[in-house]
């Protein structure tokens, strides 16, 4: 006689909802026109600037050292990208509030997992893209330009510095998006918050780290001339503030109606 067959209970993978949101949002971000616009504009600006400087050096003999040029480039990339990154991140959750969020948040996922999935997806896409673009720019500068002053350590620190500021921008965008009811309100709030805070910090005495001063100092960092303590304070400060902002966004989102 056959033994009675028992149907095993389905084993739920509790991290799967987080992965699902993360993967879905990464695909969605990569397909969005704002992301493509950001990549195209940044790459066009970087390649154009590199070629212009290369041409000026070849034809007219005008030499700008690679650290100066890369410092300018990274600063412009940051200032130019911030607005697009704000637009890209400030609609992360508020843009889906209502009908589409209903069809996700009514399933077996907690608000924390949803927020973390969205936040990490945007961070991953934007930072990965930035690292690729920074590598291309640094590589181009090494190959095409007068690069004897450029140091590997300085380049890595400069990229880490800019990346930490981008983490803050992305985190502020996603967190305010989680607390706001409309994308336009989110964009306005994030823009005011970031530019306002950046401006206020630039008014502080010189020994305080500020994004503005850090970006102005990038050429020196690329040359390897940097105050490690100051740089560490800035990077750890940006990451700590990002964590706090994300925590506030996540807790606030978990208490809101959607």
């Amino acid at each position, binding site marked *: 006689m056959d033994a009675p067959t028992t149907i095993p209970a389905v084993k*739920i993978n*509790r991290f*799967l909802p987080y992965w*699902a949101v993360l993967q*879905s949002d990464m695909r969605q971000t990569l397909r969005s026109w704002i992301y493509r616009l950001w990549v195209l504009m940044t790459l066009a600006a970087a390649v154009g600037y590199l070629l212009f400087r290369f041409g000026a050096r070849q034809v007219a003999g005008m030499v700008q050292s690679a650290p100066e040029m890369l410092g300018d480039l990274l600063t412009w990339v940051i200032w130019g990208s911030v607005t697009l990154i704000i637009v890209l991140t400030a609609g992360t959750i508020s843009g889906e509030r209502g009908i589409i969020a209903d069809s996700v948040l009514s*399933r*077996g996922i907690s*608000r924390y997992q949803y927020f973390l999935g969205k936040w990490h997806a945007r961070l991953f896409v934007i930072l990965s893209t930035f690292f690729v673009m920074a590598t291309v720019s640094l590589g181009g500068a090494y190959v095409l330009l007068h690069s004897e002053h450029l140091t590997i350590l300085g380049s890595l620190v400069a990229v880490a510095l800019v990346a930490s500021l981008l983490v803050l921008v992305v985190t502020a965008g996603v967190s305010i998006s989680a607390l706001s009811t409309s994308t336009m309100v989110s964009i306005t709030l994030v823009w005011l918050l970031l530019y306002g805070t950046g401006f206020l910090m630039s008014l502080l005495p010189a020994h305080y780290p500020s994004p503005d001063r850090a970006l102005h100092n990038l050429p020196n960092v690329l040359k390897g001339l940097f105050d490690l303590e100051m740089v560490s304070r800035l990077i750890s400060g940006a990451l700590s503030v990002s964590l706090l902002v994300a925590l506030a966004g996540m807790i606030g989102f978990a208490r809101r*109606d959607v």
Partner: protein
Amino acid sequence: MAENSSDLVVESYKLTKIYQNRQIALNDVTLRLEPGCVLGLLGHNGAGKTTLLRLCLGLHRPTAGWVKIFGQTMGPNAAGLRRRIGYIPTNPQFPRGMTPITYLDYIARLFGLPAEVRKPRLASLIRAVNLLSVSGDPIDGFSNGMTARLAVACSLINEPDLLIWDEPTHGLDPEGRRSMLDLIKTLARQKTLIVSSHNLSDIDEVCNHAAVLSRGHLIYFGSLQDLKGRMRKNQYELDLDGDQKAITRTLNIVKGMNDFKSVSLRQRRLELRLNDDVNIASALANVFMTIADNKVTLISVRSMGQATEQAFLDLVEKEESRGFARAYQVNDAA
């Protein structure tokens, strides 16, 4: 009756939702839903039906009171409870660029279902809702009927114990509506359902319990039979055929009877309104005798209005007519 509250599928107590201190969407709703119930949620637009459903799903937080699902308090982070619920929102919408296969896979992953469980299940569901031929097409171009079928598949992917369907027949053609009602009847044998609908005949057909909301207040909660029992029973329409003079003679005789408040003839339709305290069977028997005596043919007899619809309208009308008295009798919903 479930004695223990942990045996209940849904239990709410003084559930109240006020949006930003501006709009009272739900007011003091207390109800208990036992396993196997098929609850029809009735109410006009803005009565609070969707708010109640969203509170049951943890998409909204109550301003006061609580709602428990399977004996545990529902909240925004109660993912474990939502794993036992299948939900269809009103006008379900889907992310762009996804196909039924990728979307169902996404929803199944949101429930934490591992690949060896979700893949066969989503394939079966796609076949069951008849989307096999378009399973690789983008959802963007789907018709209302196909969208509704996909929403049904999504709500069943986790094999839920409780189904919450918000206007599932909305926008469907008669064939789609019939299929949906048949599906609800089939599911009702095994699961607990909450179905919100404007279409009272749908509720009448598939539900065994009803909850009626009026301006956020629960004015009735109980069995559908009881609700129908509250309907006006004193209006009837009789379709007649035969000689016009004989029909007129019948009309005059019936008008002379004391059992009726009003008697009127429109074309060949006799409309009768009985007095409140009259014996309906004997009054109607007298009318039938008169019709037969005058050699008039009786084609059909029906009570006025659809049963559930009439009961619903009566309830809302009664609630409205109570005026300020509502402030003193807030616990008589059932």
